[in-house]
């Protein structure tokens, strides 16, 4: 009985302590334009309309609140077509409540091991969406001091250093790294993040066009035509997204949500 009480309080905090009031946790991003990785120099810029983006990745605590309200997304309930066997594999059965939960120590870590279907649903429930690749990349180009941080010397290398890191950066509380120019934390160096159109780099429906995209993804030659051939970090993000399928759950892949049109 005592345990049950404790769990209820825990659940209460989870439900009303954070997840639902997320608009305060979002930053407004003004409209702008940029030239994505795979467009050659001189090609038109892509316009990004004003939108809002979560300042930090969705945490285990946020996601637990979602699951408690939507038990069909609980670890042992989710259909296999919506999430593979690694879905929430880091959550354990709480003997008292008979339910799957993250350990308390990881509540403010970014939630990982979630499929695209699950992440997409999470955002929808909050009247948000997963950000598009264009929105994500547009914001991720900023450094702490400039929206055009990618032009600063050493910017790419700092991101690349994540790949040489042998700790587990995903096992840390969100929001501890310095915010970028837009007030967004943890875009680089913590977890990969789902985007709503993660697989659009491969799927165009026209096989010859696809093969030219393949060329860019698989061959060094492709980089000759890209805007900034030294943008290895962006290449890696595009390659990573292309390797995904919507039901995949992975131990270093999380997400955050966006709202179109600003707030």
């Amino acid at each position: 009985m005592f345990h049950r009480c404790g769990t209820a309080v825990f659940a209460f905090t989870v439900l009303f302590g954070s997840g639902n009031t997320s608009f305060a946790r979002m930053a407004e991003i003004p409209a702008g334009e940029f030239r994505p990785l795979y467009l050659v120099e001189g090609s038109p810029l892509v316009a990004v309309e004003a939108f809002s983006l979560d300042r930090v990745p969705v945490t285990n605590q946020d996601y637990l609140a979602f699951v408690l309200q939507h038990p069909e997304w609980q670890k042992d309930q989710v259909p296999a077509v919506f999430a593979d066997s690694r879905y929430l594999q880091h959550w354990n059965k709480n003997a008292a409540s008979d339910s799957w939960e993250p350990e308390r120590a990881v509540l403010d870590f970014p939630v990982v091991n979630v499929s695209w279907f699950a992440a997409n649903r999470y955002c929808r429930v909050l009247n948000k969406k997963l950000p598009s690749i264009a929105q994500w990349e547009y914001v991720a180009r900023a450094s702490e001091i400039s929206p055009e941080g990618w032009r600063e010397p050493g910017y790419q290398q700092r991101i690349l250093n994540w790949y040489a890191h042998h700790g587990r950066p995903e096992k840390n509380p969100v929001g501890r790294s310095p915010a970028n120019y837009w007030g967004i934390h943890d875009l680089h160096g913590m977890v990969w993040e789902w985007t709503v159109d993660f697989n659009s780099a491969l799927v165009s429906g026209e096989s010859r066009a696809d093969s030219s995209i393949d060329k860019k993804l698989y061959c060094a030659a492709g980089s000759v035509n890209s805007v900034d051939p030294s943008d290895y970090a962006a290449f890696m993000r595009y390659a990573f997204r292309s390797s995904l399928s919507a039901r995949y759950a992975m131990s270093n892949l999380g997400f955050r949500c966006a709202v179109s049109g600003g707030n």
Partner: protein
Amino acid sequence: MNKFICWAKLPLLCLVLALPASWAQTLPVEQAVLTSPPLVPPPVTRDHPARVIVKMEAVEQVMEMTDGVEYMYWTFGGSVPGQFIRVRENDVVEFHFSNHPSSRMPHNIDLHAVTGPGGGATSSFTAPGHTSIFQFQVLNPGLYIYHCATAPVGMHIANGMYGLILVEPEEGLPEVDREYYVVQGDFYTQGEFGELGLQPFDMEKAINEDADYVVFNGSVGSMVGDNALAANVGETVRLYVGNGGPNLVSSFHVIGEIFDKVYIEGGTSINENVQTTLVPAGGSAIVEFKMDVPGTFIMVDHSIFRAFNKGALGMIKADGPEQPVIYSGKQADTVYLPEGSAIQEIIVEAESVVANNLEEQVQFGQRVYEVNCAACHQADGQGLRGAFPPLAGSDYLNADHDRAIKVILKGLSGPITVNGQEYNGVMPAMRLSDNDIANVLTYLLNSWSNDGGAVSPEQVAALREGH
């Protein structure tokens, strides 16, 4: 249709649709034997093709580049180069490519032995925690590089994702006594060569082709000391040599050996009596030589600063009886008098400047060091792990000055332990004057955290006379 299903990430189904009950299905099935460097799987003894199942895993893990320097390697099977694959011409290979769940990156494999777009790269593109299966037939015999071809390709290769696949001709390769697996690669780190700690990949240096490390089998000293390749006098050694790159072309050479045979670029043409063979980045060569005499034979990239300053150095140790007819060793050391010269004796002492105090000894000694010693023991006295012992902070040097004099006078071979690390190499006797030896030792004793002290020309002279 097939293509669509592949994209739907159902590689098994894709495979089945592509191969309706074909000839390949009727072949006998066997599991490939994979080996980590420097070992090579046993020869294929079959006289018919088979369906060979290869299971390989991409793993990202921190390993040692050299003493005290770590690097986050991306590997095929946990080693650099990745596991050696050995099959026979016309075999059908069923490739199971897994990417470890702890990986940060997706990976794939492009095998140069594959005939088909991308060499397998698109079919094997695999997210962390997943397995892809694809199949190919090896139509052309030869020794081929395989490598990861996921964007950015250069970075995947620079982090160590390459290895060799040998496709034996139907009739097999001639039998030899020893076979080894050696692959060169260049690495680009934020710190300079030898700078301690975990060194991240440096993109800018990679693009500028400014390598900090050029190594065989993934690290400095991978095949020196106890890890030297072993052979006996009279045996024929075959090296399967590859070059993963990403940037540099190798001038592969074994000091003191002549390659009896080179399968040029890993193909069918054989060249004979070759001193140095070029191994292109993303290419290979098979070299064979008979060990005629005992001793230590050093493998190098003969773009020689890479060998002595960046790590491209390995050893083959041949055991057995001396063969004095083939190689005598030094037989005599006599004074050379050019014809017509009136000089009757060489006054060595007169040629070197005599130092008047400790400061001058150190100063003159430094010049002697730079000209005679630094190539091996390095400008900073750190030596090269496993090959050339350090002179900086060296317990061996500080412990016994007379011994140090003798090493310079008479050379040194056989095992010694310096700062806890065993070295088993050869240092030749140096043709230096008593003054130069006294100065260079005094320089060493007063440099790089050594214990200080001085050596006099008289000390050297006494030991020179003594024996």
